[in-house]
């Protein structure tokens, strides 16, 4: 193995993240923008105005949204690719495609779903501008906790595997993760800044849409990156026939 394969895997991760960002962007645009608009309409009717409009709503909903979602895809694709490089061949007996899908699932859960269950996405008008610092800190803290604890659980699971077997080691590690996350949920302060009278259905639909965007992004990334990584790491003629680790090593060094 040389670092060329890390570079190749990283570049593919960023590209797969960009590509997976496209359907996620479509979902965000087609399903999400109407909710953002409704929330802004509520906001304008009820409270402070935003003052001078620096960026028009049209631009925010198109170019701005695309910038945000696609950069998010590239950045997380790159990070997921680095995690893939570490996980490949180290976590169970999974090949590149299965490893990529597992990394995606792990990223969806730890980077998004676990923090979301404590601090869900909020539309405009929900959230007191004065507490933005606290809310941002708590949200990023929750992401960091979730990712670090997941890595810890993974290491725990690998340690336990020789004694308990893969299945029960995985279940035990998962349970340990859930318990510690549960404690974090209980200890960290709750945030409830939904203004009185804000439509419950709109909040619910906005949050579902936010979750859908992530599902689409990570499903797309897992499948696409798995395909690219498999093509890079498994020699075409040999795939499925040549169980020779040295052949794979040679192929990845190309």
């Amino acid at each position: 193995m040389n670092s060329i394969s890390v570079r190749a895997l990283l570049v593919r991760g960023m590209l797969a993240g960009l590509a997976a960002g496209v359907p996620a962007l479509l979902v965000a645009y087609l399903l999400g923008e109407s909710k953002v608009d409704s929330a802004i309409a509520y906001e304008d009717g009820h409270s402070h105005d935003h003052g001078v409009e620096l960026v028009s709503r049209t631009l925010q909903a198109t170019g701005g949204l695309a910038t945000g979602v696609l950069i998010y895809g590239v950045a997380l694709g790159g990070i997921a690719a680095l995690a893939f490089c570490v996980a490949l061949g180290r976590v169970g007996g999974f090949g590149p495609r299965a490893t990529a899908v597992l990394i995606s699932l792990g990223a969806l859960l730890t980077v998004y779903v676990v923090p979301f269950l404590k601090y869900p996405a909020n539309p405009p008008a929900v959230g007191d501008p004065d507490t933005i610092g606290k809310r941002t800190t708590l949200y990023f803290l929750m992401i960091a906790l979730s990712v670090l604890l997941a890595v810890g659980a993974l290491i725990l699971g690998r340690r336990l595997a020789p004694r308990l077997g893969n299945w029960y080691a995985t279940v035990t590690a998962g349970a340990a993760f859930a318990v510690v996350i549960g404690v974090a949920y209980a200890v960290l302060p709750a945030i409830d800044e939904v203004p009185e009278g804000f439509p419950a259905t709109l909040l619910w639909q906005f949050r579902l849409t936010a979750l859908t965007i992530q599902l689409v992004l990570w499903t797309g990334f897992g499948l696409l990156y798995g395909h690219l990584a498999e093509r890079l790491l498994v020699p075409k003629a040999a795939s499925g026939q040549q169980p020779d680790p040295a052949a794979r090593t040679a192929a990845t060094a190309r």
Partner: protein
Amino acid sequence: MAHPAAPAPKAPAAPAITPISLKKIAPWAVFFGVLMLVLLYFVGAEQGATSLISGADVHEWVHDGRHLLGFPCH
């Protein structure tokens, strides 16, 4: 690396994959990991809780993405 003459006696469906050495990954992980986190910071938090650039242009430009991607926006 030596090439064994005969294929290793592993299950053909899931042949073992040589892990990439951590030393090879580390420089990429450090440099690009930080770069990716900086990108995420600009999409998710700049000109919200903290500001490296004055004004609100970055915030306003990525406003909708920030809400829909789950970041606290304002």
